[in-house]
C-alpha cells in the first residue's frame, strides 16, 4: 500500500517535472527572442527583452498607451503606429482595424509581440501621460447620484493636462470585482490647478467603479490614476462655441470654461446643459459666476421633465429641442459635446441641421 502510494506520487512527479523542464528549456531557447530595440519617433531607442506584447514593454518603460481592458484585446484602444518591422496582422487585431488604420500601419499594441527591432511613432502628448499616486482630499455630493471627488497628487505632484482631457481611475479589487480595473473620467478641474484632479462620478447601478466611489471610497484613501488622455480639448481659432452636456458630462466642459476664464478668452460661447428635473442640476452658482467672468458666455440649463415643485422658469424640453430653439445660425460655430451616446447622436443631427460643419463637432461619449 505504502509502496503504491510512493510509486504513484513519484511517477506523476517525474512526468510533470520532465514536462516542466522541457517547457522551461523551450522557453529559454525557442521562446527566447533576445533583446530587441524599439525606436520611438526616430529619437529615443529602448532596448527590451523580445517576445512580449508592445503594450506591456512600453508600460514597463513608463510610456502609457490608453487602454481600457488591460491588454486582453477587447477594447481596441491601445493602437500604436509601427512604421518598421511590424510584420503581418494577427487575427486578434483585425477586428479593431479600419482600412485607413491598416494603411497607416496602426497596430493593437497589446496583441502585437515585439520579436525584431521596430520603429514606432507615438504622439508627443502621450509622453506627458504618467501614473500618479493620489490621495482622496474631498468627496462632495453634487446631486443625488453624482459625487465630486477631489484627488491630491502625491507622486508625481504635478499634472499638465489640456482642459477637457480625461484620466484613468484605478479601482482596487473589492466585492464587485476580483481584479483591479481602470475606468476613464474627465477632469473637471482647471488645468492651472496642477496639484489636484477633480472628477464627477455618477452612480451607475452595478457599475464596478461608480459603486466603489459612491459606497466605499473614503477621504484619505490612496488612489492610482494615469493620464492625461484624449482629443476632447478646445481648438484654437475664433469660431463661436456651442457646448452641450448632460449629467456628469459637465466635467470636461467646466474645465474648458474655467481655462477660458483664466485666459480671458472673448469667444462667444453658449453652454446647453440638459437634466431631467431640478434635483439633477448642479453647479448653477459656479456657472453664474463664470457668466460674470467671461464676457460672451451664456449658460442655458434645460429641464426635460420639470416637477411642479421645481418652480422652473428656464428652458423646458429635451436638450436637442432647446439647442434647435436657441442656436439657429451654426455656420461659424464649433461644438463640444459630452454625454450619453444617445444624447450625442441626437445632438449631432441637430447641429448638422443648424449648419455646424461635421468636422467642427467634437465629443466624448461615455
Amino acid at each position, binding site marked *: 500500500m505504502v509502496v503504491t502510494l510512493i510509486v*504513484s506520487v513519484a*511517477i506523476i512527479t517525474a*512526468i*510533470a517535472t520532465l514536462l516542466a523542464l*522541457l*517547457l522551461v528549456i*523551450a522557453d529559454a531557447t525557442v*521562446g527566447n527572442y533576445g533583446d530587441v530595440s524599439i525606436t520611438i519617433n526616430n529619437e529615443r531607442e529602448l532596448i527590451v527583452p523580445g517576445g512580449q506584447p508592445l503594450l506591456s514593454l512600453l508600460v514597463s518603460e513608463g510610456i502609457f498607451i490608453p487602454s481600457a481592458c488591460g491588454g486582453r484585446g477587447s477594447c481596441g484602444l491601445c493602437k500604436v503606429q509601427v512604421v518598421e518591422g511590424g510584420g*503581418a496582422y494577427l*487575427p486578434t487585431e483585425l477586428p479593431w482595424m479600419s482600412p485607413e488604420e491598416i494603411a497607416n500601419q496602426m497596430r493593437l499594441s497589446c496583441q502585437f509581440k515585439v520579436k525584431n527591432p521596430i520603429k514606432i511613432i507615438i504622439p508627443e502628448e502621450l509622453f506627458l501621460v504618467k501614473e500618479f499616486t493620489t490621495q482622496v482630499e474631498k468627496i462632495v455630493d453634487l446631486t443625488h447620484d453624482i459625487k465630486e471627488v477631489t484627488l491630491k497628487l502625491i507622486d508625481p505632484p504635478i499634472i499638465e493636462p489640456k482642459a477637457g482631457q480625461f484620466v484613468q481611475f484605478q479601482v482596487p479589487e473589492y466585492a464587485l470585482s476580483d481584479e483591479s480595473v481602470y475606468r476613464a473620467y474627465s477632469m473637471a478641474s482647471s488645468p492651472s490647478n496642477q496639484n489636484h484632479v477633480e472628477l464627477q462620478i455618477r452612480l451607475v447601478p452595478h457599475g464596478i467603479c461608480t459603486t466603489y466611489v459612491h459606497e466605499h471610497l473614503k477621504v484619505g484613501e490612496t488612489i492610482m490614476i494615469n493620464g492625461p488622455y484624449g482629443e476632447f480639448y478646445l481648438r484654437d481659432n475664433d469660431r463661436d462655441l456651442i457646448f452641450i452636456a448632460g449629467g456628469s458630462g459637465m466635467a470636461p466642459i467646466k474645465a474648458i470654461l474655467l481655462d477660458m476664464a483664466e485666459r480671458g478668452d472673448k469667444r462667444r460661447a453658449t453652454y446647453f446643459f440638459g437634466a431631467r428635473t431640478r434635483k439633477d442640476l448642479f453647479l448653477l452658482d459656479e456657472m453664474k459666476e463664470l457668466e460674470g467672468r467671461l464676457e460672451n458666455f451664456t449658460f442655458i440649463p434645460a429641464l426635460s421633465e420639470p416637477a411642479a415643485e421645481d418652480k422652473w422658469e428656464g428652458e423646458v424640453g429635451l436638450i436637442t429641442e432647446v439647442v434647435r430653439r436657441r442656436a439657429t445660425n451654426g455656420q461659424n460655430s464649433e461644438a463640444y459635446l459630452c454625454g450619453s451616446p444617445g444624447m450625442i447622436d441626437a445632438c449631432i443631427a441637430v447641429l448638422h441641421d443648424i449648419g455646424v460643419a461635421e468636422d467642427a463637432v467634437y465629443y466624448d461619449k461615455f
Partner: protein
Amino acid sequence: MGNFLFPVAVFFAAIFTDNILLTNYLGMCSFLAVSKELETSAGLGIAVTFVLAVTTPLNWAVYYLVLVPFQLEYLRFIVFIIIIAAFVQLIEMVIERYSENLYFSLGIFLPLITVNCAILGASLFMVIREYSFITSFFFGLGSGIGWFIAIMAMAGIRNKLRGAKIPIGLEGAGIALIIAGFMAMAFMGFSGMIQIT
C-alpha cells in the same frame, strides 16, 4: 481482416462510422463556437487533427511504457491531460518562433484545444479498445480528420443559413445543435461500411 489492414480499417472507421464528434459527441464546445466561419473552422480542424495524431500515440507510449509496468493505469486521466497540455504549449511556442504564417492560421487556435475533450477522449478510447501503437496513430489521425470534416460541413451549412429565417428561440447554439443532430443521423448511413471493436 488481417492484422496488417486493421490500422487502415480503424482509420476509416474513425472518420466515418465512429466519428468522434458526430457519434460520440466529443469536442462539441469548440465545434459550436468556431464553426461560424469556414476559414477559422479549417484552422481549428487542422490544429485538432495534428494534435490528435501526435498525442494519441504519445499517450500510448507513456501508458504502456510507464503506467502499465508500475500498475498505475488509474492515473491515466491526469497523466494524459498534462501531456496534452504540455505538448500543445510546446508546439505553440515552436510554431510562433519558426513560421509566422502557420502561427496565424493554426497557432492561435492551439490554446483553444488544450481543453478539447475529443483529444482526451481519443486517448482514452485508445486504451479501452487496446489498440497497438501503429493503430493508435491511425486512430488519432482518423479521429482528427473526422472532426475536421464535421466542422467544415457545419461551417458550410451555417454559411448557407445566413439570412435564413430562424425562430428567435433557436438562433445560435439551438439551430447548430439541431444541424449537428441531422449530420449525425446522416453519418449513421455509413455504419455497416466497416465493423470494428
